[in-house]
């Protein structure tokens, strides 16, 4: 029997994964690559949290039009995360405030956390992957 069969029988271990997104979209490839990795992870039925801090909060802004710079608009993909059972999306209050942003500016529903709450969330993870 292969390892894959063992996983299918539900014997796989579920770990707590945090994907920490700290970069603005488009200027670097981090945001898009991070999103791709999250979608792959979703296929393995893990406990996934997606966190947006610092310039990472810019990834979730509404009203994006990328035609002028001729790159893919991946902002709508954040809306599809729900369909992959990735429902734990968190943003950092301090990062939002520093950029003049509110929840109404974002393309998806998120939980806004204080720095202390964010620190606790990070501390309870098994694995943190940073983009």
């Amino acid at each position, binding site marked *: 029997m292969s390892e894959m069969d063992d996983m299918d029988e539900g014997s796989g271990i579920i770990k707590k994964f945090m994907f920490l997104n700290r*970069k*603005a*979209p*488009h*200027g*670097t490839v981090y945001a898009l690559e991070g999103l791709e990795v999250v979608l792959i992870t979703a296929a393995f039925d893990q406990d996934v949290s997606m966190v947006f801090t*610092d*310039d990472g909060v*810019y990834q979730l*802004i*509404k*009203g*994006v*039009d*990328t*035609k*002028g*710079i001729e*790159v893919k*608009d991946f*902002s709508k993909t954040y809306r599809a995360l729900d369909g992959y059972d990735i429902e734990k999306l968190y943003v950092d209050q301090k990062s939002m405030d*520093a*950029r*003049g*942003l509110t929840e109404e500016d974002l393309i998806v529903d998120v939980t806004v956390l204080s720095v202390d709450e964010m620190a606790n969330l990070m501390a309870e993870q098994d694995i943190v992957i940073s983009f």
Partner: protein
Amino acid sequence: MLHIVNKSATERGSLESCLAMATKGSAVLLIEDAVYAVTKGGTAAAKIQAAAADLKIYALGPDLAARGMSGRVLDGVNVVDYGGFVDLVAEHNSCQSWL
């Protein structure tokens, strides 16, 4: 001189270095992730508004649009398209890119 900045002011210090070095009458063009600096409510907004007294501040429109920021641009900032970018380079004797 035309100064060009392409990094986010909340991640790197290149905008601050640029504004410290840019002399009166110079032009500063913000592109790519640097365009967030000219949006309302951010920490860089006050710096940009203070700098606009002595400098001409430009931001690249397609980069603002791609980041959902077209509707949030500070007063006094000139939004240009790619043709405007070319004109700025042509109009100035020299360019400094703050990489």
